[in-house]
Each structure stands twice: as C-alpha cells, then as structure tokens.
C-alpha cells in the first residue's frame, strides 16, 4: 500500500492561449467537447480533430503527452474488453473501442489545453464570473489548500508505517492504514476548526475569494466563432454520415 503523489502538481502552465479570456476558453472547450461526445460514427471525428490538432502546438507538448499517456491507461482495458464483450457482429467491439479511444483523446486534448491549463486561480475567476455560489468557490479553494497540507501529512504517516512494519500484511495492514487515515482525519478536522477561528478573527469569509476582473476582447469572439464553425462542421458530417 503506498501513496502515489508523484504526479500531483499545479496544472497552471503558460501557453499561447493565455491571450484569450478564460471565460471564452471554457465556453469554447465545453461547446466542442459536447459536440465531440455526441459523435457516434468515426467520420464525424475527422472535422472535430482539427482544433485538438492545433491545440497540440499551443503549449508544452511534453507535458501534454505525459497527461495523455495517463489518460490512455483506460484504453488498454477498452481494447481488451470491448472486442470480447460487445454484442453484434465481429468487429463491432473493435469499432466501438476505436471510437471511444478517439473521442477520449480528442476531448481530453481540448479540455486539458483550454481548461485544465488555466489553473485553479483562473478557474475560480471563471466560476465567479458565471455567478457560481460563493460557498462552492470557497470550498474549492479551501479543498485545494488542504489537499497539499494533508498530502504531506499522509505521506509522512505512510512512510512511518512502512518503516515500522515493512512486512505487514492482511488485516493488520488494513488496520494500520485505517488508523492512519483516522488520525489524519482527526488532525485535519482539528486544524480546520483552528483555521476557521482564525478566518473569523480576520473578518470572516468576506473577500476570501475575490476574483480578478476579466476582459472580453474581439479576438475572444473570433475564437468562439472558430470553435462554433468547427462544431457545426462535426454536426453536419454526422448528419450526412
């Protein structure tokens, strides 16, 4: 049993897409991703692959490749399972596996480049400008903060268990980890109460998540139009296929 924390990182990365308004990036990405998700035939994905292809070169290709390798772990099971389990004529499972793999990769490229690479700060700005509940945004930012604090705590405790009892197996191992998780929970809950008290002393949550102002420019409208045309092309091809 171990904690796999090596690939946790802040996803915010500089890219050529930073010139666009984050709201525009989110809207365009969601529009194209929904259209790609609705495709049921492979020809429909051809026009839909234009934007993901261009997005490959909009930022660090290495980082994106690593993420795609991680995302594609599931496709191994898809290619093993679907050809065996899909009902219908032989080859139907392979067609479905190919369709799912293509959709997974195209949608992932769009969403990673356009949304994930914004980073949590700018995603919070977008949520704020779309009038999401302040409670929700505060919860998001606090969770982000506690993830990194608790990760250190959990990694230390896991290391302690491994050092003290490297040969632990079976129920005793699960018992040790359950106690570790329980202790982490109690420590964290106590810490949370103290944080809340400190926040109240500083004037409560007012202004806790104060977003930056966002500016919509003509180039954002052009990007939206480009994505809309691409999405329309996918729909037209799907209708005629």
């Amino acid at each position, binding site marked *: *049993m*171990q*904690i*796999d924390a090596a*690939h*946790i*990182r802040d996803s915010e990365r500089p890219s050529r897409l930073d010139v666009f308004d984050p709201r525009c990036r989110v809207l365009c990405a*969601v529009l194209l*991703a*929904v259209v*790609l998700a609705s495709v049921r035939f492979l020809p429909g994905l051809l026009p839909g692959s234009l934007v993901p292809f261009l997005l490959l070169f909009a930022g660090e290709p290495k980082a994106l490749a690593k*993420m795609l390798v991680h*995302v594609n772990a599931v496709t191994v099971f898809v290619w093993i*399972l*679907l050809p*065996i*389990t*899909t*009902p*219908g004529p032989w080859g139907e*499972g392979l067609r*479905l596996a190919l369709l*799912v793999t293509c*959709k*997974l990769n*195209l*949608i*992932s490229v769009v*969403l*990673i480049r356009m*949304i*994930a690479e914004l*980073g949590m700060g700018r995603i919070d700005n977008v949520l704020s400008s779309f009038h999401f509940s302040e409670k*929700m945004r505060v*919860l*998001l930012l*606090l*969770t*982000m*903060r*506690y*993830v990194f*604090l*608790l990760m250190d705590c959990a990694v230390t405790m896991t290391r302690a268990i491994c050092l003290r009892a490297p040969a632990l197996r079976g129920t005793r191992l*699960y018992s040790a*980890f*359950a*106690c570790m*998780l*329980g*202790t*982490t*929970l*109690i420590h*964290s*809950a106590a*810490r*949370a*109460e103290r*944080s809340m008290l400190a926040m109240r002393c500083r004037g409560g949550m007012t202004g806790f998540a104060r977003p930056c102002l966002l500016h919509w420019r003509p180039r954002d409208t052009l990007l939206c139009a480009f994505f809309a045309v691409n999405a329309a092309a996918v729909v037209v091809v799907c209708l005629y296929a």
Partner: protein
Amino acid sequence: MHIHEGFLSPEMLAAGWAVAGIGTAIGLKKTDPDKIVRVAVFSSVFFLASLINVRVGPSSTHLSLLAPLGLVLGWSVFPAVLVALLLQAVLLQFGGFLVLGANTVDMALPGLIVHLLFSKSIRRGSGFAVAMLSFAAGFLAVVLGALGTGMFLTLSDPGLRGAVGVIFVANLPPALIEGVITLLMTEFLKKTAPDILE
C-alpha cells in the same frame, strides 16, 4: 470507478449534471458556513484517498472512502465530491470535466444513501452491531457506485453492457477492502473523536 471522457452520450452527460446540480445545491444549502472548512478537509481526504494504492493480487486498486465521507458529511457529500473530482480532473486527469456530473452522482449518491441508511444506527449503536453496519456501509457504497457507473455506461451505449458486468465484478474485491477500512475507521473515530460522526 471514474468514468472517462468519450464514453457517455450527451443525454447521460446532461442527466448526470442535472442530478449532481440538484444534489450540490441542496448540499450547499444544508452546509453551515462555519462547517465549510470541515467539508473542505473531508473533500481533500477523499481526493487523497484515490492516491492510496492497495495491492489486490497482481493488480492494484485505490481507496474511495465513499462510506466514511457519506457517514460524516450527509448531504454535504455532494459538494465535497464535486470539488474533489474537479481537482482530480485538473491536477491528475482522473475522470474529466464533461463527465464530472455523472462521476459526482456515481460517488456522492452512494455516500448519501449510506448516510441515510446507517448513520443513526452507527452513531447510537456499539460493539459487534456497529462493526457489521460499518462493514456493510463501506461494501454497499462501492457496490452502489459500481452500479451507478454501469447504469450510465449501459444507457449511453448498449454495446458497453458486457464490459459493465466485468467492471462490476472487478469492483467486488475493492468493496470488501473498503468495507474493512470503513469498519476500522468507524471504530477508531467512535473511540477517539465521536463528535466527528455527529
């Protein structure tokens, strides 16, 4: 248990977002502003639980802690899971953004059901009965999660029905492990910090 991008039809994506939206709205309304930090802590514990790999034979699985989360948070489990899954999508590329609604329903709804079924009995009971109820809660949460995943996949594409059976069977060993972990965690919490379960 995460559903990835590309598997669900737009209808199922919309249904997932609708149910997750309603659950999250109720959860946020029921969450006391003073308790929001505690919800954030449990949300981050849920996030981190997915990084704890448990060896099962030649393979490995990860914890979900759906039952402990549901037992402690009640309706707040919806916003807690939604936020944790959003962070998983941004930081780890687990799941995705479009499927966030469906994944939230898959994981938060079992937590809520477990809360409604077992929370009172576990809080008031003691001894063997609590141990059995906690185990059942942990086991049931994972099984319900797997059923929810299967339902979304089957309704999206009937061709995925065969794979859903395999996914369900593959989730049974993690469900047993989750049952044991929930049992031990509940006993630990009841002994050391019973106020957390209140």
